[in-house]
């Protein structure tokens, strides 16, 4: 919470990974969900976490911002061990992390302006400044006209875009996307992925994106955002985004950690079956 805890040094050493998972395991009701998960997210990197539904992708994301505690292993975000921090101390750290939840998780009693500006209100930013920054964030997701609407008045795609605006309004240093295109039609999904690519290429924000939709994942790896045309466009033939790489979960374990090239050329039968 602003003003109540020591500020988090998000810059740290520039080479130091933003997120580190070390042998993390977690289970619920005696059922193991994730087992011995280890990976890193480097500064400016986008890691796409793939896996079938129900494999624990959202759990992993909640572990990353301390909403859940692992049963064993350690998790570091900006050099802070979130797996060992008290809830009170985590609030300051979360100020530097933007999270987009699966269904948007917008506050249904607040309008779009108050949803997007929630964190700014909590930090006691002046009302004029809040309106300005909320408008900017909504312009980024092309939803300026919906500023005074309530979540119940928005479509599923619009809610996700508002959730993205809420996550980026404070210019976070790490973005966590939990299935931002889940349950959306292909056109709306492309719009959402375009926003994620825009955030990646314009602001170079480190991010961890969870999805089970391969087409979204490959679109992110094979497209870039053109600032001049203000549109997403495919990369030239045989080129892929070097800052986008993949993780894959299967049966509680991390079965893949590597580049797009490694993923498509993997000989692992599960991975081949998944991407086929």
């Amino acid at each position, binding site marked *: 919470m602003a*003003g109540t805890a020591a500020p988090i040094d998000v810059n740290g050493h520039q080479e130091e990974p933003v997120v580190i998972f070390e042998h993390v395991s977690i289970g619920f009701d005696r059922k193991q969900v994730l087992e011995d998960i280890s990976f890193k997210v480097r500064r400016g990197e986008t890691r796409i976490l793939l896996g079938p539904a129900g494999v624990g992708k959202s759990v992993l994301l909640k572990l990353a911002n301390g909403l859940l505690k692992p049963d064993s292993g350690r998790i570091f975000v900006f050099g802070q061990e979130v797996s060992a921090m008290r809830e009170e101390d985590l609030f300051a750290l979360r100020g530097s992390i933007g999270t987009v939840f699966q269904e948007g998780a917008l506050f249904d009693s607040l309008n779009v302006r108050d949803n997007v500006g929630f964190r700014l209100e909590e930090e006691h930013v002046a009302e004029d400044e809040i309106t300005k920054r909320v408008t900017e964030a909504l312009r980024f997701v092309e939803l300026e006209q919906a500023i005074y609407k309530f979540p119940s008045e928005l479509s599923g795609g619009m809610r996700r875009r508002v959730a993205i605006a809420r996550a980026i309004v404070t210019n976070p240093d790490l973005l966590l996307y939990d299935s931002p295109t889940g349950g959306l039609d292909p056109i709306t999904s492309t719009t959402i992925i375009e926003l994620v690519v825009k955030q990646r290429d314009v602001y170079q924000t480190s991010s961890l994106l969870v999805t089970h939709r391969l087409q979204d994942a490959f679109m992110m790896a094979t497209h870039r955002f053109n600032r001049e045309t203000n549109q997403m466009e495919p990369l030239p033939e045989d080129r892929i985004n070097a800052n986008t790489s993949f993780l894959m979960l299967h049966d509680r374990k991390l079965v893949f950690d590597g580049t797009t090239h490694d993923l498509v050329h993997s000989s692992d039968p599960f991975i081949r079956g998944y991407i086929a």
Partner: protein
Amino acid sequence: MPLATLDTSARKYVLAVQQYVLLSARALGNVARKPFYGADVITQADSIGVGSLPIVLLTGFFLGGVLALQSSSTLAQFGAAAFTGQLVSFSMIKEIGPVVTSLMVSGRNASGMASELGSMMVTEQIDAMRALGTDPLKKLVMPRIVATIVMNFFLTILSDAVGILGGGLVSVMMLGQDGTQYFNTSYQSLQYPDIIQGLVKPVVFGFIIATIGCFYGMSTRGGTQGVGRSTTQAVVVSSVLIIASDFIISRFLIGILGR
């Protein structure tokens, strides 16, 4: 197998009690910690206090009336019908006012808190709040606890007053008693220990209502069905705790205050 089931159930209940104590302690501790959500306290006080006013006044009035109606015939058998006012004021201030007001507030607000927070839980709004760097115990639970304690205290005073008034109206208009005598015996027989008892109870009951409502709301799992279950449990548990703790508080305060 039955032993294992018993063991699992016992663990579940012990864990629930532990979580309830932790939630209550952290929410209370937050009263003294910054930021203090004053605007949220006022909003909740309006919703809980002003919103509950009609039902509390109505129940208080009719309870005072029926108390006078029932007790006067019994008192008349001993030639003590003149003490109807004393009996009504004693009963309203020490027992019926605090207990019935709290049960009404519990029925209306513990359920409201459990369903509101429960819905936020199952739609990940509570997680979103935590992810946005705001402590839901400070922003959502603390204002509800403070508002319920304060408003339950004042609602009980109002309920006591209209209850005594209701008893007075019944005594005068239906039982043909003297109004001055009724209000004189009501007022003069009261002593500070009686007032203290009547004012301590709503504070404790208000705490029970808010913490139980928030606890069940914040521990909601399992979609809309879970929200319904939490709402029902919040009302049942807070009502039972109010009545059980009423006995303990009465015994304790009678021991200390001597009446």
